[in-house]
């Protein structure tokens, strides 16, 4: 037992950056990393559509959304890096946090790491997420943490466009042809069980809520369901009833898909540490 433990400790120190990050992470850092990872992973997923969109305009649209999300995640990573640097003399950068952490350290929502599937699933996921993100950031804007408030206020303007664009697609496909309607139904079936995690607070979220730096995500559920329901109705689709909801992403317990995303996203920094454009 003792041997196994010391072996594990040794393994942990193999990656200096990793130990730097995980050992110093307080609850606030964990919360900010959750916000950063969620937006980064969805940005990475959406960017897979680049040059593969159904038509040029929509290719540009989803890539622009990806860029907005990436910008938001950079703001969070930069802030997390600043805080971690204040509490250590082993400085980390936004790049360390994005490129040198492992699956178990990533705290993104599971829904963001799911494969894009077809176009129906890609736009439906974006719609579910954008409505949630809007409700969340409206509250985050009231945070007593000025930096989080500033990042949220900035992002809200962008999210408005994401909601408008993705809701139009959900309606167009749901209330479209038999084929597009069927695709949208399949998409709902495929990803609905990942929407419950939006509203299941992790320990770090509860503590940040108590300290006034983050919202209580449980309170966002009713409004979210109401908005989703309105759009799905307009799209001639049905909101599923209560089913078992997946969770774990916020705690670093992921689907098998995240490892593949990280392998691709991080390969350059891991092969050529410190490489720059």
């Amino acid at each position, binding site marked *: 037992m003792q041997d196994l433990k010391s072996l594990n400790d040794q393994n942990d120190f193999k990656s200096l950056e990793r130990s730097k990050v995980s050992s110093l992470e307080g609850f606030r850092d964990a919360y900010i990393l959750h916000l950063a990872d969620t937006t980064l992973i969805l940005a990475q997923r959406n960017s897979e559509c680049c040059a593969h969109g159904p038509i040029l305009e929509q290719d*540009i*649209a989803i890539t*622009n959304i990806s*860029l907005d999300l990436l910008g938001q995640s950079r703001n969070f990573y930069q802030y997390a890096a600043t805080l971690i640097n204040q509490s250590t003399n082993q400085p980390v950068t936004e790049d360390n946090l994005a490129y040198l952490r492992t699956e178990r350290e990533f705290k993104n929502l599971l829904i963001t790491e799911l494969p894009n599937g077809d176009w129906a699933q890609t736009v439906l996921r974006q719609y579910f997420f954008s409505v949630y993100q809007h409700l969340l950031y409206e509250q985050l804007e009231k945070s007593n943490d000025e930096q989080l*408030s500033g990042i949220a*206020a900035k992002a809200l303007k962008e999210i408005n466009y994401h909601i408008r*664009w993705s809701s139009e697609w959900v309606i167009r496909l749901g209330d479209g042809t038999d084929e597009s309607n069927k695709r949208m139904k399949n998409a709902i079936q495929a990803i609905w069980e990942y929407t419950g995690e939006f509203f299941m607070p992790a320990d770090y979220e509860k503590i940040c809520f108590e300290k006034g730096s983050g919202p209580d995500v449980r309170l966002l559920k009713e409004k979210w369901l109401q908005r989703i329901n309105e759009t799905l109705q307009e799209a001639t689709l049905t909101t599923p009833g209560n089913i078992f909801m997946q969770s774990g992403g916020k705690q670093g317990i992921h689907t098998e898909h995240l490892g593949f995303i990280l392998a691709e996203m991080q390969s350059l920094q891991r092969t050529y540490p410190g490489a720059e454009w």
Partner: protein
Amino acid sequence: MTQPEQHIDFTSTEKKIWGLLETVPDPEIPVLSILDLGIVRAVKVREDEVEVIITPTYSGCPAMDAISMDIRFKLIEHGYKKIKITSILSPAWTTDWMSAEGKRKLAVYGIAPPMFRSDEGLGRNIECPQCHSHNTKLLSQFGSTACKALYQCNDCKEPFDYFKCH
């Protein structure tokens, strides 16, 4: 050129720096200076150090790094040595900070300038920068850069960029 009101009382160095910043173009829309865009929020001069405070247009605007570098080069070129570029997020940038001159230059360049936020939703159509018709339609809410949407004129049929209200 418009400058935030709090800087009416310039020192002569600050005035010079504002003048230099007026000559730094936006890397993606080079007809606009960074002052036209309203992204320079303040200039502070302390002894030998110059601090320029800027705010990003969009969270993911890839031009911000280039803009910081361009400001630094411009100031170095004019003999300033200690330069600090600080990026702040709040208050969040809005297209309402774009100068009237900036909007005029945009239209001449072929990009429809943003309406005021308060005018959005009043049902006014975007004016075609080519033939000035208001008979235009939205092609895509997302255009060639994060800050633009793609429109088309129903009269002259030209597609054009609209600088989105933000």
